């Protein structure tokens, strides 16, 4: 219960920040005529960018929210306790990132220093419900559970294989 509270506070903080940041509107590109680009990726016009917000739960877990007039980028860093979790996290999140088209709001490559990134544009906000988008992002914060399950299954499989190997001697 005590451990769940810090997580809930962290998630609540991120949720409130996203609700405030997800006010996007269509804005054509100022550099190139008849183009419409997510300004948070280009970063060529400082007047279109808002101050980025970094929410840290601890040194290993943090969330960076960068907002602009027509787009929002959210980057997450997941806690990794050991080398095995590090590898499992990388493989799992890379697996998801390679299927970014299915998720629509997922970025193919995470921002440097983070494990996974999302890019939400004004078009997404027009087509999708804002609250559900936020809930979808928050759901990824719980990727740690998924990775813990993966770690348990790796160890379980290793145990079974070791048992079978040693039984052959008996």
């Amino acid at each position: 219960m005590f451990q769940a509270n810090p997580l809930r506070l962290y998630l609540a903080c991120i949720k409130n920040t996203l609700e405030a940041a997800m006010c996007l509107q269509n804005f054509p590109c100022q550099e190139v005529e008849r183009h419409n680009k997510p300004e948070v990726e280009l970063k060529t016009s400082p007047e279109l960018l808002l101050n980025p917000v970094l929410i840290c739960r601890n040194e290993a877990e943090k969330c960076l929210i960068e907002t602009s007039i027509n787009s929002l980028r959210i980057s997450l860093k997941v806690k990794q306790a050991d080398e095995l979790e590090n590898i499992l996290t990388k493989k799992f999140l890379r697996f998801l990132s390679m299927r970014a088209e299915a998720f629509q709001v997922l970025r193919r490559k995470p921002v440097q220093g983070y494990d996974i990134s999302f890019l939400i544009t004004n078009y997404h906000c027009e087509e999708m419900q804002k609250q559900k988008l936020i809930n979808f992002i928050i759901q990824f914060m719980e990727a740690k559970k998924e990775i813990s399950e993966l770690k348990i299954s790796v160890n379980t499989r290793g145990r079974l294989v070791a048992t079978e190997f040693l039984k052959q001697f008996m």
Partner: protein
Amino acid sequence: MQCSVLDTNIVYVSTSTLLETQGIVTSKEILSATYEVIKNIAVGVIDIVDPPRLGFQLTLKLHLDNIPRGKAAEAIKIITRISEIQAIILSSQLKEMLKRLNFQDDSQAINNNNRPIRIVYHPSEPFYVFRQAEKITAAFPMNFKDNSDVVIAMSFFQELVEVGSQKEMGKAPQCSWSPVPPFQLRGEPVHDLTTNAGFVSFDITSRHVEGKRLDKTVWNLLNFYAYVKYHIKRLNNTRFEEEAPQKENGACKYVKELVKVPKGKLMMQQRCKDMTRRVKISKFRIRINGCARFRFNQRWISIPKFSSKSSNKSYTKLD
């Protein structure tokens, strides 16, 4: 392998599986029983050439035309058995060595300086066997190419040691792992003892080399590397591929739910877009040749604002 253009149905296969101790060959001879096993693999197909080719322990003459061509299953069986010849030779040598070490006294072992015997089943994957007090130890230097394989292997070795120390596994060989080579391997080539995943050791007692258990012990020792690598490969390849369709379907369903915008709002937005487009088209100048004097002054129709947002404030671009 050697073959001649003059007679394409005859192939000579030479093999060598030497057991070494610090570079000195300890076991070169192949037992007569092993010769008999090899001859009986495929009668009429295999002939043993005596003496073997220079530098090899055994040379076989294969009569390819005697392999049954009509029966594919039988042909594959014979070919599989021929490919196992090296394993047969090595396992027979290892059996003899384990029996000899098992019956060796501790005093004899000390006289022989407990020198480890180097066995190579797979290329560049040697392992060592040496006698200790009341047991024989097989030490495997573990090497992997990828860092991720090393991490998975280390967790597997941890599980192996834990499972081996349980009461239920009391009859199995005691298993241990260490990051440094056992001190008995001093003097062995440095490139063999350079590892990135430590050393796994199995303590084999007399119980494991008696009777039918000897075959199982030898087979398990020879195939330990393959066992570990297969386990790691399965973990790397199957974990996410099996869950791929489920995750993708789940993702698509969830995203489709996000797309559900109320119909009324969507229709309103579509109407606004259509109206704006039509007004923009009507705003373009229509030029009729010869009627220049009738051209209107440049007073354009102001487009009504359909957006519910407040009017755009003018701003100057910052440098």
